[in-house]
């Protein structure tokens, strides 16, 4: 059994003159939350639609659990579930009717479909809204029933296309909880977002996409490290140990370490956060007690700005400032 839930090579889709997806290579491991991060119009939805067998790629290939999305579409469909960016339920029907409908389509018997719908509504806190038309739901309720509809049968892979766009913080937190529960249950999640903190909070692996291309890839930490340098702050318990600590840090980190005005504090700018953990161990081994040890990382916002030359939430890419290549 392949370790990868998704593997694409050179995936591309053109609409007229728009190269919506322009050669995307993606590898998503099983059981992970993979963040697909990019501004509006970057090509996230188009990529997902190709992976969900709704669009045929113009070039390149895509496999879902080893099954080709074009040639083995049915195999793919029986393993995935899609929560689209826009309404994907019948808004005129009630919540429970929508869920019963999907349960029936997926093979539940009539009574089993009803049970399944009720248990889903209960788990998503929608029992009271069960017999209300979906178009009367609030934004947060909409999102929850959309996701509930996607797990009528627990999918091996779920696509969540901007599941929190336009939600208030409270509803967003609920969606995050649901996503975490999904992955804890063994489902692989491909989640698109325009929000850097969302990718940072949820995803173990992030692909940054802009203008149809993946421009950077890695864990949130790697992405941050690839762009900016982290600011290391160390405070020793006994100020007389500061020189020893400084010498040790300079040796292990191979960067200059500065004395601060605070007689117990040291700071350094580290390009590679790798040896920092080792430095910590060695300080401990040398009997130097620490009062504080922190590695401040650049925010993903800064990462995005550095990678694309424009801010993450803007779709305006008129100014291609210095493009910094990804670390990979």
């Amino acid at each position, binding site marked *: 059994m392949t370790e990868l839930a998704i593997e694409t090579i050179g995936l591309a889709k053109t609409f007229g003159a728009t190269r919506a997806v322009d050669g995307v290579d993606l590898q998503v491991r099983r059981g992970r939350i993979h963040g697909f991060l990019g501004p509006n119009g970057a090509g996230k939805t188009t990529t997902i639609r190709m992976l969900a067998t709704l669009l045929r790629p113009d070039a390149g290939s895509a496999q879902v659990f080893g099954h080709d999305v074009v040639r083995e579409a049915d195999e793919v469909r029986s393993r995935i579930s899609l929560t689209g960016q826009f309404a994907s339920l019948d*808004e005129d029907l009630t919540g429970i009717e929508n869920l019963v409908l*999907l349960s*029936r389509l997926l093979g539940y018997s009539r009574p089993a479909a009803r049970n399944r719908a009720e248990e*889903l509504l*209960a788990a998503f806190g929608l029992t009271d809204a069960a017999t209300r038309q979906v178009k009367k739901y609030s934004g947060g*309720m909409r999102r929850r029933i959309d996701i509930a509809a996607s797990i009528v*049968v627990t999918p091996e892979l779920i696509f969540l296309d901007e599941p929190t766009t336009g939600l208030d913080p409270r509803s967003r937190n609920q969606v995050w909880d649901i996503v975490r*529960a999904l992955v804890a249950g063994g489902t692989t999640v491909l989640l698109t977002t325009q929000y850097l903190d969302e990718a940072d909070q949820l995803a173990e692996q992030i692909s940054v996409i802009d203008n149809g291309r993946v421009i950077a890839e890695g864990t949130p930490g790697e992405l941050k490290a690839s762009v900016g340098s982290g600011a290391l702050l160390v405070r020793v318990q006994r100020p007389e140990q500061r020189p020893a600590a400084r010498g040790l840090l300079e040796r292990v980190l191979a960067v200059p370490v500065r004395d601060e005005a605070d007689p117990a504090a040291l700071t350094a700018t580290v390009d590679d956060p790798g040896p920092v953990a080792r430095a910590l161990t060695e300080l401990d081994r040398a009997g130097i007690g620490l009062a504080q040890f922190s590695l401040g990382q650049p925010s993903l916002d800064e990462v995005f700005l550095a990678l694309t030359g424009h801010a993450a939430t803007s779709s305006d890419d008129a100014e291609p400032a210095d493009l910094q290549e990804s670390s990979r």
Partner: protein
Amino acid sequence: MTATDARQQAPSPRQPLEQISGEALQSVLLAGARPPRPGPLSVSATFGWRAMLRIKHVPEQLFDVTAFPVLMTLMFTYLFGGALAGSVDRYVQFFLPGILVQTVVMITMYTGVALNTDITKGVFDRIKSLPIWRPSALVGALLGDVVRFTIASAIVILLGLALGFRPDGGVLGVLAGVALLLVFSFSLGWLWTLLGLVLRTPNSVMNTSMMALFPLTFASNIYVDPETMPGWLQAVVDVNPVAHLVTAIRGLMEGNGDMGDILLVLVESAVLVAVFGTLTMRRYNRRA
């Protein structure tokens, strides 16, 4: 899960019922084993059930099905009946099978409009990513429409009876006529599903269907005997499938149904499904 914990400590007093718990989610995920794949018939029937639910929630859509036939029947019977057939009573005998066909055939175009609305709203993205028999969503929608056609037929016929329609074919003749009409309408529906997939907006689907339907229904024997028409128009009526349908249904309702007429309609229905059903499914599966 810290976010959940935080909320449980400080529940929002306004929306206490929106609580969701990680454990409930876990158990609902565990219970989501995939049942055996349902067959084409069962899935199509489920989509038909959806159409029924839509009638329940959006009863306005029955307006076209009820008000339109009533208006058309009354208007033509009283406005033109005397002029066209000498008396209202005689005209109803001739006209009722025709207006029945006119009404139901006109309603068929909403099939395409509804499909296009589903597509533009995104509902079809979910449906198309399900592992189900591909044509089922369309077959189910058309089956649901057959129910609407039946309601419309019942209204027209009841109104006709009230206006003095006394068909010699009796109950059986009328039912046979309606059955033939339903078969033809289901088949014609595939033309509108194709339009629904090809055109961009529900409105353009509506306009295009209208443009096709007006000549089909007016250049026919629905309102008047084609004998009174100019020769070129008679030639059009002769090859118009809607006219063939009217002829066959008139025969059935008058109690002298002609096997040849009926067979012609059935063949035309089969051709409609074969051609437009195939084109529709090809387009549906195209994934542009």
